[in-house]
């Protein structure tokens, strides 16, 4: 073993969507922890998924299909951190289909997140500010030289880069002025051309070229200048660090409370901010600092509730049902908001991807859980692990062994095969008792019942 199995499993759950037993075997036997981190933050070492092949199987314009394709990528990518960072950016820059009802632009926005997530913060914000889905979502196409619309300018400062308390209302106005003329070309009309994405367009006639004062600096700023100023601010370093900590390490309070509530681990935020400032916002440096830190390695038992996406993708990775583009993956993502007659599991669990509730994004952590969402989590794993013909399930069942084996060993193998799951001592004992009872029930019970119960525990709700 070149690296610790539990620690690597923890890393893969947080930096990706968990690892299958086989992946854990390979990683821990061939690479050190540091080497695995290095691989994660340098995804171009690994081939991307051949989407031309996937697109042939998952066609159609409903936004659920776009989400389905994304879920497929999350479950099958060899570049897990690339997908995890796309999800991270979707969490902090949430754009909803509900306003534009334009699936292709949203799908392309996620592609942009994928391509920029591991570059630097300036590049991320710049691409975000030119992204048609975002421009329409926050009305920057209505932000004109003579008629400022502050929606994007305000959220850029408040929700996307620094947080309340680090700028004035005048800064918002001037930032908004700098983004005038940043809009998008009308996409081809739906009839008869079908759905096409929109492209960014700068209309110089509609841009305010006059002098502006922003965060104490004066100049003929445009949007890029504004972003340049923002990303050098300590406030941006802190803001991004706190987001990363919340997403990868431990649940924090919701963003609107950050102005008044201190970080749970101020030292960790300081380490991340320092890495950010020293590398001029280079995400690879910041993430390498994060994953190699003691605070990350020690965070296995800190509360971090799996998002519905993490839970669902983690489970379908284990069951192997979608190791190839099998039909049906979009069913996880259907929602009545998109016209479906029923809600899919993502919606019932409270996370309609590409359809966040508001510009504030999802409330995470324990807010993912209520009686309805929890029942759905339990019902979901029950259903997903019930079919022994799914390749992942059949492999797990055969590797766990027979119910006549020693119950403690059965539980150990079950926990390990579900991705080296970390459970509390009490849970472990209950699972062991349950394994004994399953044996007594003989033919009416099976090993898959133990898998279902393990994935139904309180502990399994944590990433």
């Amino acid at each position, binding site marked *: 073993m070149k690296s610790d199995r539990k620690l690597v499993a923890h890393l893969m759950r947080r930096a990706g969507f968990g690892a299958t037993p086989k992946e854990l075997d390979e990683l821990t036997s061939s690479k050190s922890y540091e080497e695995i981190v290095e691989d994660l933050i340098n995804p171009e070492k690994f081939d991307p998924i051949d989407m031309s092949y996937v697109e042939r199987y998952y066609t159609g314009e409903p936004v659920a299909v776009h989400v389905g394709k994304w879920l497929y990528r999350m479950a099958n990518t060899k570049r897990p951190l690339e997908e995890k960072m796309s999800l991270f950016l979707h969490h902090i820059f949430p754009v*909803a289909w*509900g*306003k534009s009802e334009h699936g292709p632009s949203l799908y392309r926005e996620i592609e942009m997140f994928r391509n920029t997530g591991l570059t630097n913060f300036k590049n991320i914000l710049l691409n975000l500010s030119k992204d048609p889905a975002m421009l329409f979502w926050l009305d920057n196409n209505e932000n004109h030289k003579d008629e400022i619309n502050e929606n994007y300018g305000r959220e850029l400062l408040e929700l996307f880069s620094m947080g309340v308390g680090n700028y004035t209302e005048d800064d918002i106005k001037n930032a908004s002025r700098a983004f005038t003329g940043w809009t998008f070309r009308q996409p081809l009309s739906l009839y008869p051309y079908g759905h096409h994405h929109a492209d960014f367009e700068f209309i110089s006639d509609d841009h305010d070229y006059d002098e502006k004062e922003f965060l104490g600096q004066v100049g003929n700023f445009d949007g890029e200048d504004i972003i340049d100023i923002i990303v050098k601010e300590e406030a941006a370093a802190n803001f991004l660090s706190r987001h990363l900590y919340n997403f990868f390490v431990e*649940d924090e309070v919701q963003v609107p409370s950050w102005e008044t509530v201190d970080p749970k681990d101020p030292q960790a935020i300081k380490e991340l901010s320092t890495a950010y400032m020293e590398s001029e916002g280079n995400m690879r440096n910041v993430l390498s600092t994060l994953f190699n830190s003691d605070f990350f390695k020690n965070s296995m038992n800190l*509360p971090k*509730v799996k998002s519905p996406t993490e839970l669902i993708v983690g489970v379908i990775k284990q069951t192997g049902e979608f190791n190839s583009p099998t039909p049906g993956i979009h069913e996880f993502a259907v929602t*009545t*908001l998109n*016209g479906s*007659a*029923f*809600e899919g599991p993502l*919606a*019932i669990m*409270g996370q309609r991807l590409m*359809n966040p*509730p*508001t510009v*504030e994004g999802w*409330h995470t*952590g*324990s*807010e993912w*859980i*209520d*009686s*309805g*969402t*929890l*029942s*759905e989590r*339990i*019902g979901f794993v*029950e*259903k997903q692990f019930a079919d022994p013909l799914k390749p992942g399930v059949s492999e797990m069942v055969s590797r766990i062994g027979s119910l006549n084996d020693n119950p403690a060993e059965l539980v150990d193998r079950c926990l390990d095969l579900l991705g080296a799951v970390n459970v*509390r001592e*009490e*849970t472990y004992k*209950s*699972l062991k*008792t*349950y394994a004994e*009872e*399953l044996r007594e*029930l003989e033919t*009416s*019970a099976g090993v898959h*019942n133990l898998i279902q*119960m393990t994935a*139904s*525990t*309180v*502990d399994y*709700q*944590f990433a």
Partner: protein
Amino acid sequence: MTTDAREKTLVVIQLTGGNDFMNTLVPYTNEHYYDARKKIVIGQNDVLPINKTLGINNNAAPLKRLFDEGKVAIVQGIGYPNSNRSHFRGMDIWHTCEPDRVGSEGWLGLAIKDLDPKSENVLTGINIGQGLPRAMSVAGVPVTSVGDLESYGVMNKIEQERLKERSLQAFKDIYGQAIGSGQVAEYIGKTGLDVLKGADLLADVASKYQSSIEYADNSIAKSLRDVARIHFADLGTRVFYTNHGGYDTHANEMPAHPKLLTDLSGAISDFMDDLEEHNAADDVSILVFTEFGRRMRDNGSGTDHGSGGGAFLIGKNVKGGLYSEYPSLNPNDWEHGEDLKHTIDFRGIYGTVLDQWLGLDARPIVKGEFEQIKPFYI
């Protein structure tokens, strides 16, 4: 547990997507309506007149029957200033009564908290359907969300009795032990136990229910039948919530909308008959709402998001009739040159229900004082 059958119960039906109010309560003599609506329009022969200017879409004949019996209060022109056309934001506003900021506390969640301040009954508020609506969500207020009454709970798809029993016991052990192991695990543990409690209470509901009413086979009928079954079991539920989806009729409105109205009005009238049959009609009122109406002009195949919708209060204790005013259809009066202007604020209607039906103080829930109506006999 509260089992006072005389306590008033509220059933809220959300029409998701934005119901076309003009094509539901049709201004069948109004030239502006027929000028604006070229294709997505209800002809004069397709309405059931309730007076000289308004008629109920004849696909909603059961609603007309209830109206004639004096059990339907139609709240015309319900909305709020600067109606938001986003479904999300629109629904959010209706759910939280917060048009100017993003609220996190649902109005019914707050009502449930007032009805059951110590959270003694996990069934005080029940959502029938999938996904807890924000209207019912308030931190620390347990609300039970039932997707399918027959299978509510966990581990209950297991057929073998002993296996099911053992599995439930294991679940209970694991979730019970989470108490004392950190705030979040504890909360998840408690929620899991709430699911079990709710499931225990609800376990016999389906099998004990008897009725001569045969509900139709569609989602809203099934949901209202579940409401009836739970209500008759007398488990102390004061607020039921359910939604009927598909009202976002940008396209294909003419084939789609009639079916929605047929399903909805049929389900409501079956539910009302069921209440009568079980001597429970005095205790239940229904509020039907939607997040917005549709645009004045159609787009050739459907209608886009607009404002100025309509709501319905239905029940034996409801004084039937028309309330507030039908928004002006004259183009000079249209909001933004294309929308109906609302004539009464939805928070006043929530207030009406909270104050007058549930006996609560509405002001902190709807955040202010809004004009109410007097639609109840009580």
